């Protein structure tokens, strides 16, 4: 098993506060664009696909599959898995895969959102864990 890492507190700003308030309730928010109908992550006020400012917050199911994964073997908190997870809604999320044997992870494996606490009073961070489906 991987050891428990200490996660630094994310710093919400005016553009991203909705995301972090939802994270505190265990909900993963992404952005959809009402102009080009494409989703994106990490969330922006202006759509990175088309430049429209008609983006809206939507709730992700928090499920997806591993696009790629590398296990860090050295340094504080090692071993830990760094991965891109492709959400079922489309966007890829740079994240950690937690609560698993890092040597068991593979491309294509199904995972689901598993928020991890950061610092006292700060929002949790969006990590993922194998979902077994």
């Amino acid at each position: 098993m991987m050891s428990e890492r200490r996660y630094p507190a994310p710093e919400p700003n005016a553009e991203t506060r909705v995301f972090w308030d939802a994270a505190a309730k265990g909900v993963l928010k992404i952005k959809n664009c009402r102009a080009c109908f494409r989703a994106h992550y990490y969330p922006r006020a202006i759509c990175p696909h088309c430049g429209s400012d008609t983006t809206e917050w939507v709730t992700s199911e928090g499920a997806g599959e591993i696009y790629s994964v590398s296990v860090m073997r050295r340094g504080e908190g090692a071993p830990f898995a760094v991965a891109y997870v492709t959400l079922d809604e489309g966007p890829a999320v740079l994240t950690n895969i937690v609560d698993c044997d890092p040597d068991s992870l593979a491309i294509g494996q199904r995972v689901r959102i598993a928020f991890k606490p950061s610092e006292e009073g700060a929002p949790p961070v969006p990590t993922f864990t194998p979902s077994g489906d």
Partner: protein
Amino acid sequence: MSLRNRAYIAGAFEHPTRLAPDKSTPQLHAECAAGALADAGLSLEDVDGYFCATDAPGFGPISMIDYLGLKVRHTDSTEMGGCTYIQHVAHAAEAIALGKCKVALITLAGRPRSENVMRFRPGAPESAFEQFVGLTNHTSYGMCAVRHMHEHGTTSEQLAWIKVAASHHAQHNEHAMLPKVVTVEEVLESPMIADPLHRLDCCVTTDGGGALVVVAPEIARSLKRPLVALRGAGEATKGPSGGLGLDLTTSAAARSGPAAFAEAGVTPADIKYASIYDSFTITVLIQLEDLGFCAKGEGGKFVADGNLISGTGKLPFNTDGGGLCSNHPMFRGGITKVIEAVRQLRGEAHPAVQVPDCDLAVATGIGGSLGARHGAATVILERQ
């Protein structure tokens, strides 16, 4: 308007140090500047353009210009990570072509072994969403290698050949940090750092630096050095940009490379020597594909069996030993890529690795984080 023959690299200098506890970082910049100007046969007072990036201490280019005692009429502090200095060569040529300067000085230096260098970028838009992940270059490039292996069947043995070739070259470089020839087995048996990259798949960390002097054609012809012209250049950036269609097996060099070849009017088959930024073995493999030396997915076969070793392989690369074995000053290998290409074109590389009749070379690099967001810069250089 093309950059072809608009500017020449007249001076090139790589600091011999790899560990500099008793020097300051500005001092290393100054020593590199002096070395490159002496190589060109020019002096500080000839310099009318200065190019640096965020490794230069102080406020943009202003502090270093004052420290060095320069009087310039053009400055450029373009920042694109480790490949910046390849890009600076092209930007210097652009400035020279427009008459904004005639003698451009480019410097890089730093002491990551001797001092704790802060590398995070506070306030980056992605910070809150990515900083917690603990992404380092090891896992970033590691994910690219994992994905390349998954899609194309690339193997760790093939990646190891890139290090083996670099080590064959480094044995002839008296300043190389790792001058020992290594085998594929030794690479594979070195400790795993971030899957699938072993310690010997990673470049060295060194104190040091380098400098280049890019000049107008009439100045180049007035000097006593061989004529090394810029023939073509390209630059590009790439990132997840919202996360749709993520592709970690192709880099921004897939755009910077073809742009440089198009401007130069040559193809990869014409290239006699290649300087390929080698932060990790996988960095080289992906760029070779993206520049068109082989098809996407064929990089593993291309680099295997010593094909990158000068004298025996099809494409001699990084004949100074590269970042993998010789030098990666301030975590930034762009300038040494240009410097070794200039040595090759002048016929001044070590005789054991000098490419015969080397008249056309490419220097290309990746800056930033290949698995996250990065830039690429490519130049085609020609001896005339």
